[in-house]
C-alpha cells in the first residue's frame, strides 16, 4: 500500500519515535538527573510536534494525495503478517498535532508543577512513553498496531495515576483504571481477531490493515463471506474497546478515580488525548461502522446517555478536578454520540476543540491546586484577584466548554447537536439538556472557586510561574480560535453544517439559562441551592451514589469474584485435588504398605509354611494336568 514516488523521508518515523527515544534516554541516563530528564521529555515531544508540523506543510505544499502509508513488517509468517508503521491522512495528522502540540505545552507545565516531586524523572519517563504509545495509536496502519499502542497507553495511564504510589487511593485508582480497561479490551481483542479471521476466505490473505480492510469490506459483504450477524458482533466487540478507553457508561467508573494522579496527567491523558483515543478509533474505523447500522444505534445511545448522566453527576460534585472529570465523560459522550449518528467529522472536530479547552481547564485547576493545595471548591474562593491569569483561563475554558457563542466549543458542539436534531430527536433532547447542565456546573465551579470571596483568605495564593501560565495562555488562545481554523473542511466534511436556527436558539437558551441560574444561586443568592436539593431529594440520593455502579462493581469484585469464585476454586484445589486425590493416593499407598507389612513377620516357621504350601499347590496342579 506504500504510495511510490512520495518522499516524506524519515519525518513520520521521527514523529513517532522521538518520544520513545526520550523515554529510553531518561531510563538510561536521566533517572538521577532531574533537569536532564525533563529536558529530554520536553525536547522529544517538541521534536515530534515540529516534525508533524513539517509533515503537514510538506503534504499541503506538494499537494500529496493522502493517505500515505509507510511500514515495516513486524511479524512475518505465512499465515499471519503484522506490520508496524505510519498511516498519514487528515485524521491522523490532525490528531498527531493535537497530541504533540497540547502535549508539549503540558510537558512544559509539568516541569514546574512537579518540581518538588521525588519521582520527577520517573514521571517524565512514563509521560514520554505515554506520548509514544498515543502516537502509535494515532498513526497505526493496522488494528494490531493500534491495539499495541492501546495497551501501552493503558499501562502509562496506570503508572501515572499511581505516580504517588504510597497513597493507597492513588495506587487503587491506577489498578482500577487498568482493570476496567482490561475488561473492555477483552472484547476489543476478540473483535480485532474476529475481524482478522473474517477478513478473507483465504487463510493466507487475512489482514489487520486498515486500508486493505476498508477496500475489501464491501466486497466481503457482497460475496456473503461476512454475514450481517457476524459484522454486528464484530462491531460491538470493537466498540467495547472504546467503551473502556473513552470511559463510556457502564465502564466509566475509572475516570473520576483517575483524578488521583498529578493534575497535568489528568489534563493530558484523562482529558485531552488518551480518553479521546476511543473516539479516534471509532472514527478511524468508521468505514466499518457505517456498514453496521445496529452498532451505530448502540454507539449513539451509549454516547447520549453518558453525556447526560455524567453531566448530572458534575452538578453535585465538590472536588474541582472531579467536576472536570465528569465533564470529560460527558463531552466524550457527545463525541461518541456523534460517531453513532454518522458524524465522524463532527466527533473529531469536538475532540480537537475539547482537547484545547479541557486541557486548559485542567491546567488552570492544577495552577490553583499548586498554589493552594486544595481541591474542594467550597474551600476555595476569591482567586479571581489572586490569580488573574489562571482565573481568566478557567473562565475562557469554561465558556468554550459550555458552548458560549464565538468560542471553539460552540461550533463543534453545534455540529453535533444539529446532527442529532436531524437524525434522532430523543438524542437531541438529551444533548440539549446536557448543554444546559454543562453551562450550569462549569459556571458553578468558576463562580464558587474563583469569583466568590473566600471564606478564609488565601493571602498566600499567588499566580503560578510563567512556565505554567504560558501554556495556559496559548491554550486559551486556541480555545478561542479553534472554531475558525476550518477543521471540518480539513477532515473532509464538504457540506458544512449550517445549524438550523432552532438548534442555535435552543443552545443559546441552554447556555444562558445555565449561567444565569448559577449566577442567581451562587452569587446573587436569590435562590437557595438547598431548595433544589430538597425538591429533587430522590434524584440527589441517586446522584450521591453515582448511580451505584461503583458499589455494584465492588460487590462483584470483592464478593462474587474474590470470595465466591476464587475461593471455590481454592477449595477444590486444596481439598479435592491436593487433599483427596493426591494425598489420598499417598495415604492409600502407605496403607497398602502397612497391610502388606504384616506378612513380614520375621518368624521363619511361617515363611517355611507358606513356602511348603506353595510347593504343594504347584505340584498338585502339575499332576492334575
Amino acid at each position, binding site marked *: 500500500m506504500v504510495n511510490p514516488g512520495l518522499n516524506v523521508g524519515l519525518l513520520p518515523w521521527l514523529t513517532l519515535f522521538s518520544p520513545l527515544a526520550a523515554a529510553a534516554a531518561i531510563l538510561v541516563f536521566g533517572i538521577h538527573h532531574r533537569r536532564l530528564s525533563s529536558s529530554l521529555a520536553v525536547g522529544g515531544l517538541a521534536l515530534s510536534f515540529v516534525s508533524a508540523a513539517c509533515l503537514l506543510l510538506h503534504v499541503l505544499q506538494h499537494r500529496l494525495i493522502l493517505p500515505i502509508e509507510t511500514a515495516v513488517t513486524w511479524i512475518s509468517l505465512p499465515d*499471519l503478517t503484522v506490520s508496524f508503521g505510519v498511516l498519514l491522512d487528515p485524521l491522523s495528522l490532525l490528531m498527531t498535532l493535537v497530541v504533540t502540540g497540547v502535549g508539549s505545552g503540558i510537558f512544559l507545565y509539568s516541569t514546574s508543577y512537579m518540581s518538588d516531586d521525588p519521582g520527577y524523572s520517573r514521571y517524565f519517563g512514563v509521560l514520554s512513553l505515554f506520548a509514544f504509545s498515543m502516537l502509535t495509536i494515532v498513526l497505526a496502519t493496522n488494528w494490531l498496531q493500534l491495539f499495541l499502542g492501546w495497551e501501552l497507553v493503558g499501562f502509562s495511564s496506570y503508572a501515572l495515576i499511581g505516580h504517588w504510589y504510597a497513597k493507597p487511593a492513588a495506587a487503587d485508582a491506577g489498578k482500577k483504571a487498568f*482493570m476496567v480497561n482490561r475488561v473492555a479490551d477483552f472484547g476489543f481483542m476478540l473483535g480485532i481477531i474476529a475481524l482478522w479471521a473474517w477478513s478473507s476466505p483465504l487463510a493466507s490473505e487475512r489482514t489487520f490493515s486498515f486500508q486493505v480492510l476498508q477496500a475489501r469490506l464491501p466486497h466481503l459483504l457482497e460475496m456473503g463471506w461476512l454475514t450481517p450477524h457476524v459484522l454486528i458482533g464484530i462491531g460491538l466487540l470493537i466498540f467495547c474497546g472504546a467503551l473502556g478507553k473513552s470511559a463510556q457508561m457502564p465502564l466509566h467508573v475509572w475516570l473520576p478515580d483517575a483524578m488521583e494522579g498529578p493534575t497535568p496527567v489528568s489534563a493530558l491523558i484523562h482529558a485531552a488525548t488518551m480518553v479521546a483515543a476511543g473516539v479516534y478509533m471509532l472514527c478511524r474505523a468508521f468505514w466499518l461502522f457505517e456498514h453496521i447500522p445496529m452498532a451505530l444505534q448502540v454507539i449513539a445511545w451509549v454516547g447520549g446517555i453518558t453525556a447526560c448522566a455524567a453531566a448530572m453527576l458534575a452538578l453535585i460534585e465538590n472536588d474541582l478536578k472531579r467536576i472536570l472529570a465528569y465533564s470529560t465523560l460527558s463531552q466524550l459522550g457527545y463525541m461518541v454520540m456523534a460517531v453513532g449518528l454518522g458524524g465522524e467529522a463532527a466527533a473529531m472536530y469536538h475532540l480537537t476543540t475539547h482537547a484545547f479547552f479541557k486541557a486548559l481547564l485542567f491546567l488552570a485547576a492544577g495552577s490553583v491546586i499548586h498554589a493552594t493545595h486544595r481541591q474542594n471548591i467550597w474551600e476555595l474562593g476569591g482567586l479571581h484577584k489572586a490569580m488573574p491569569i489562571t482565573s481568566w483561563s478557567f473562565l475562557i475554558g469554561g465558556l468554550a466548554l459550555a458552548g458560549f457563542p464565538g468560542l471553539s466549543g460552540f461550533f463543534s458542539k453545534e455540529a453535533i447537536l444539529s446532527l442529532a436534531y436531524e437524525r434522532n430527536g430523543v438524542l437531541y433532547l438529551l444533548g440539549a439538556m446536557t448543554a444546559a447542565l454543562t453551562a450550569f456546573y462549569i459556571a458553578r465551579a468558576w463562580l464558587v472557586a474563583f469569583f466568590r470571596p473566600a471564606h478564609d483568605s488565601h493571602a498566600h495564593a499567588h499566580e503560578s510561574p510563567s512556565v505554567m501560565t504560558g501554556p495556559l495562555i496559548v491554550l486559551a488562545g486556541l480555545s478561542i480560535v479553534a472554531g475558525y481554523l476550518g477543521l471540518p473542511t480539513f477532515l473532509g466534511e464538504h457540506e458544512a453544517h449550517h445549524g438550523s436556527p432552532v438548534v442555535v436558539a435552543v443552545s443559546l437558551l441552554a447556555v444562558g439559562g445555565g449561567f444565569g441560574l448559577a449566577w442567581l444561586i451562587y452569587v446573587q443568592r436569590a435562590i437557595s441551592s438547598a431548595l433544589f436539593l430538597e425538591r429533587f431529594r430522590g434524584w440527589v440520593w441517586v446522584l450521591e451514589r453515582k448511580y451505584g455502579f461503583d458499589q455494584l462493581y465492588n460487590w462483584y469484585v470483592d464478593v462474587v469474584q474474590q470470595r465466591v469464585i476464587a475461593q471455590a*476454586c481454592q477449595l477444590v484445589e486444596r481439598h479435592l485435588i491436593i487433599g483427596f486425590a493426591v494425598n489420598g493416593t499417598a495415604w492409600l499407598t502407605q496403607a497398602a504398605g502397612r497391610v502388606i507389612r504384616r506378612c513380614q513377620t520375621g518368624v521363619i516357621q511361617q515363611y517355611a509354611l507358606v513356602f511348603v504350601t506353595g510347593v504343594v499347590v504347584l505340584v498338585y496342579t502339575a499332576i492334575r494336568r
Partner: protein
Amino acid sequence: MPPLSSSWILALVLLAPAAAALLLCVVPAAQAVWVRRIAVLATGASLAGALTIFFHYNRALAGYQYEMLVPWISSLGISFHLGVDGIGTTLVLLHALCAFCGVLISYAITDRVKEYYIFYLVLITGVFGVFTSLDVFFIYFFYEMAVIPMYPLIGIWGSDVKEHGMVRFSKEYAAMKLTIYLTAGAVLALVGLLWLYASSGLQTSDLVALEHHFSLTPLAPHLQRMIFPLLVIGFGVIAPMWPFHSWSPIGHAAAPSAVSMLHAGVLMKLGSYAILRLAVSLMPDGARLWLPWLAGLCVMNIIYGGLVAMAQKDLKLIIGYSSSSHMGYVLLGIAVLTPVGLNGAVLLMFAHGLMTALAFALVGHVYDQTHTRYLPELGGLAKSLPFIATCGVIAAMASSGLPGFANFVAELLVIVGAWDQYRLQAVLAVLGVVITSVYMLRLVRGTFFGQANESLPHARDATTPFARLPYLILTGALLAVGCWPKPLISLIDLSTRPIIARIARAQAAAPGVGSTWRESY
C-alpha cells in the same frame, strides 16, 4: 550445516556445567568464593555458546545443526547424539539465560554453598541435555537427571509455605511430592518410549532416524492411539497439565528462589518440549486423535489456574499458579496443531520462562529482605526497593501480556492460531489474560504500593550493577524479543513447519480418522 568443527559449541554448552559440577566436588567447601566463580564461569560459557548458536544457526539449511554423534551401545542402537533445530536453539538460549541469572541470584544462598552449587549445576546440565539430545534414551536420561537434584535442593535449602504464620505445606512435603510426582510421570512416559522403540522395529533410539522412519512408514494408528496418551500424560505431569499440576505451585513456593527460577522457567518446559518433540512429532495420528482432549484440559489450566492464583496470599504461590495457568497457553498452542499456534507455543515457552524466572527472582529478593512473602504482611516496598519494584511492575506487565514484551506476541500467536478450530478455547484464553492482570496487579499493589508496613525490617534494594545484572538480562531479553519478534519467530517457524507438514500428510493419508474425532468431539 555449519562446518563440523563448530559442533563442539553445543557440546560445550551442555558439558560446561557438568564439568563445573565435577570440579566443585574437589574444591574445598571453605572456598565459597571460588565455588561461586566457577559456577558463574561455567554457566557464562554456556550462555556464550547458546548465543553463538542462536546467531549462527544456518537458517537457509534449517534442520538439526551443530550435531555431534558418539556411538555408545551399538547393540541397542543408543548413541550420544547432540544437535539443535530452531526449537532447540530457542530453548537452549532460554535455559542458558535462566541458568546464568539463576547462578547469580544464588549468591543469596549462604548455607552449604558447595553442595548447593553442585546440585544446581547438575540440574542445569540435565535441562541442557534434554534440549540438546537427539537420542530418545538420552532425552530420558537427562530428564531424570534434571528432576532428581530438585529433591535435595528443595528439601535442604527450601522454605515452608506459611499462612497466618502457620506452616501450611512443609518443604519436605513439597520436595517429596514433586519428586514422586515427576518420577511417576517419567515412568509412564518411559513405558511409552519403550513401546515406541520396540514397535518401530529399527533397533535404534536415535530421534533423527525415528523421525525419518515414521515419516515414511507411520506407526500403525492403533499403536499411536495407545502410546500417545502415555507420553502426553507422562510428560504432561511436568508441563504441568491439569489436573496433575498440584505438585508445581507448592514445589515452586518451597524451593529457594534460584531453584524456582529454573523450575518454573525451564523445567516445566521440558514437559511441553517432550510432548512436542516425541509425541506430536513422531505420532501424527495419535496427535490428531488425542489433542482435542488436550485442548480442553488446557482451558482448565488457564482459567482454573488463574482463579486459584487469585485466591492465594503467598507471593510464590500466586506466581506458581500463574505459571500453571500460563503453561496452559503453551499446551493449547501445541494442541491446536496450526503453524501459528505451534510457533506461539514455542515462543511462549521462551517468553514465559524469562518472565517467571524474573518474577521468582524478585519475590526471592523481597523474601530475603523482609522474611515474609505473605501478601497481607507486605506493602509499600517501592519506597525502599525502587529497583526491585520497577522490575516487579515490569514482570507483572509482561505476565499480563502487555505489548512490548515477548509474552504478548506469543499469546497472540496462540490465540490467533487457535481461533479457527478451537474458538471457545481461544475466547477463554483471552479471558485468561484478564484474570492474569487481576492477580498480578493485586500482587504488585499489595507488595510494592500503598503504605509501608512499619513492622517489617528495613529492606535493601539491589543497588550494585552486579546485583542488578540478572534482572537486567531477563527484562532486556523479554523486551528485545517483544519489540522485535521477527527473527526469533522465523527461527522457530523453520522447525515447527515440518512437524505440521507431517501431520497434514498423515491427515491426507487417513481422512477417516480425522473426521471421526471431529464428529464425536
